[in-house]
């Protein structure tokens, strides 16, 4: 008798039961969260600027990521920098998802969810904290943001703080433009930046 015979005999048992696995996955997320084992819960939502990854720790939203950033790569970085105890589990980001839906529908101008800013430190973090003060529908130049963050000469550093914003859309780095009014860069791509600014100027 060979191994192939045995595996062939059992082949009918090898079909994956997708319905059961979906149910078990949901239960695992819930029980892991209850047991304090779910360090990062994430989901992917649809939006007018493409699929957005939302990831949250027990402290709050820790990462929002555009598809062009590569969601797998983003999760790998979270595993290395925060914890590998990561599961797709929607419940923890329900409120953030609801507020983003309202925002994209033009019915919300500010986000009110707890943020976990542990992925940013130092000057970048002060810049990103200032960004939240730029009102909906308004823009600032990189130079103005540098001045507001207390380092008027650090214009390039403001650029990299925006480029490394771990919470785009919610922390509005899309509201920062070049002094001549051109778009500059954007972590989600220039098309997304343009779409967000158009959304906010239309409302």
């Amino acid at each position: 008798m060979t191994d192939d015979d045995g595996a062939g005999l059992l082949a009918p048992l090898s079909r994956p039961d997708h319905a059961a696995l979906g149910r078990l996955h949901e239960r695992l997320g819930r029980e892991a969260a209850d047991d304090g084992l779910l360090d990062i819960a994430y989901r992917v939502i649809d939006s007018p600027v493409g699929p957005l990854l939302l990831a949250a720790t027990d402290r709050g939203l820790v990462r929002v990521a555009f598809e062009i950033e590569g969601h797998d790569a983003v999760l790998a970085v979270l595993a290395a920098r925060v914890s590998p105890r990561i599961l797709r589990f929607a419940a923890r980001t329900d409120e953030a998802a609801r507020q983003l839906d309202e925002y994209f529908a033009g019915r919300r101008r500010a986000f009110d969810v707890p943020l976990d800013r542990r992925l940013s430190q130092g000057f970048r973090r002060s810049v990103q904290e200032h960004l939240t003060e730029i009102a909906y529908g308004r823009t600032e130049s990189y130079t103005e943001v540098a001045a507001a963050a207390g380092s008027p000469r650090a214009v390039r550093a403001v650029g990299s703080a925006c480029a490394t914003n771990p919470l785009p859309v919610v922390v509005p780095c899309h509201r920062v433009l070049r002094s001549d009014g051109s778009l500059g860069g954007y972590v989600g791509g220039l098309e997304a930046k343009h779409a967000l600014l158009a959304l906010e100027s239309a409302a």
Partner: protein
Amino acid sequence: MKPFERVVAEHGATVLRVCRAIVGPVDADDAWSETFLAALRAYPALPADANVEAWLVTIAHNRAVDLLRARARRPEPVGELPEAPSGRPAPGDGSGDIWQAVAALPPKQRQAVAYHFLVGLPHAEVAAILGGTTDAARRAAADGISSLRRSLAAEREGARS
């Protein structure tokens, strides 16, 4: 270290098959959930070069042994062989007979068959999980498969007559 979600995505189906084979369909969901919760708890300390599949099967095996022991202690009647799970309700794809036949195997054979033939672990890994020698694990798997073949053949004979 990859996100645990990837571990579930890559090995969830295999672990479910193992749980169904070892504890039967009724307790398989609990065994699967307990396996992945225990794995999630221990995951950050898992060595980078560990064989994740063998690690998960070992956890599942231990959970299943606990579940079978607990079931053997249950006061309500559970049939003549407390360690043998009831067969999977036939899902209409012809696999029902095989699940029943697997369920009727003695525990060691059932485990050796599941870990070697369903998961694909080498006999040496199976022996490490079950205790005992590699030869004993190989024999248990071979005896189990022969027994399955006989009972399935008998089943077909019975269906024909």
